[in-house]
């Protein structure tokens, strides 16, 4: 996949969406402006030459003490071209919110719920955003870096 070509294609449609690009060990990462993630994903899936029809994975990352603190990381694959593409959005520590991509890939359903459960990232527009692995009354978000590794005594 030609990175420049890909970025140009996205910019043609969404001029402000791509904030940066990176290439490491043959993997391409695009930094996306958070408010553009949903249209970018829809475009990447629907554009016939790109056809990123498979959401491989979606997860959160906590970059504490960096600000913006959180990242949502999307791994997309095209079953047609066999390309893998990583998208990232950076989200502020005070209120990490980003649009849900459930309407693009249903696979995002549980992945977004898990990122919410573990990091407290809110996916707006998700049809059923609640904790998935932990109990509903759980306090805190365990995969945040300031969450203790060992439990506290009651």
């Amino acid at each position, binding site marked *: 996949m030609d990175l420049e070509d890909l970025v140009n294609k996205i910019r043609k449609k969404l001029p402000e969406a791509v904030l940066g690009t990176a290439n490491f060990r043959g993997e391409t990462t695009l930094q996306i402006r958070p408010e553009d993630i949903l249209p970018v994903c829809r475009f990447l899936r629907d554009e016939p030459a790109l056809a990123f029809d498979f959401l491989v*994975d979606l997860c959160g990352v906590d970059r504490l003490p960096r600000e913006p603190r959180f990242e949502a990381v999307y791994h997309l694959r095209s*079953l047609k071209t*066999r390309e893998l593409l990583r998208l990232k959005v950076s989200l502020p520590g005070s209120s990490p919110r980003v649009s849900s991509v459930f309407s693009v890939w249903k696979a995002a359903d549980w992945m977004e719920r898990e990122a919410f459960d573990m990091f407290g990232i809110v996916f707006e527009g998700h049809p059923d955003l609640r904790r998935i*692995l932990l109990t509903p009354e759980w306090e805190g978000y365990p*995969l945040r870096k300031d969450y203790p590794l060992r439990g506290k005594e009651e």
Partner: protein
Amino acid sequence: MAAQETMILNMGPQHPSTHGVLRVVLELDGETVVKATPDIGFLHRGLEKLAENKTYHQCITLTDRLDYVAGMSNNLAYVLAVEKLLDLKIPPRAQAVRVLLCELQRISSHLFWLGTHAHDIGAMTPLFYALRERDEILFLFERVCGSRLTPSYFRVGGLVQDLPEGFEEKCREFVQTFPARVDEYETLLTQNKIWMKRTREVGVISAAEAINWGLSGPILRASGMNWDLRKTLPYSGYEGYDFQVPVGQNGDVFDRYIVRIREMRQANEIVRQALDRLPKGEVIASDPRVVFPPKGKVPESIESLIHHFHLASEGFPVPQGEVYASIESPKGELGFYLLSDGTNKPWRFRVRPPSLINLSALSVMAQGRLLSDVVAIIGSIDIVLAEVDR
């Protein structure tokens, strides 16, 4: 017309057909499933959090405990990710042994699935047959690394040690007898009328929907999608093996059964080819940054002792960056996303668990089916809750 009332039925978390501790909240109209909502997390151990506090080397043992009926595959996916971060080259013998063991693991995982799945539906005999052969494989694993379920045999850079003496003969014996054993399973099930009634046109999902739900592995192929990472994005030298990817048509429980049965035969062929070509040579890369000094040297030379001590206590630093590496595990696409901050521990250790994502489509497959079909559908997804919950 009288108002329709549905009933809520709680299935699990202690139900024997849920393969662990899965709870499914079923909304039923009579015997028909209106909605099936899985409730997971009973086995959540915070594995990703634990991994962030362990060195890259220590994390290998954690991966054994994901899909515990396919430990070798988990190890492979993880070490591939670390090796990608380090940009390491793996010796050919290590590559071939990895392929060999992972294909044996695929057979043993499918055998366990076959036995339990058939048992869920009411056929008891296949369980005993399947576990008989599975035990032979576990016995081989025990010879290789001393452990049946938690191998931790693959290391960053290669293998912990070479195959033991006599392994190849024992393995060849298995490879020669196994196809006839698969015939036995098939005589019990494939043409069995009850089996067909319970599995055909049950839990159907189309290829387009399966892709949209992110399904992978046999369940995706049973829907007619020819997608196998060993072929489409080869790793560990799979491009050099001659094998076919079985694909179904109807995307129902029966097709998933047929796909896995055929996959076992193909996996057996790959093991045979790997045995035939097993190259001689080193089994681990000669990179002192990450590879332990040979065991014999440690008590003899002070430098090796220090080197060993450093690696064991501090681990090794990994270049800053992020990678995603994935393999075709018996369950589907098992991937690891590692984010390194340049230290000896992963900043983020994310598992892409095929069981979890395949299970997320349960409600789609179960909707409109009978209650008894739910058992067949759960079995056909082939989940391991330790991987679902991590």
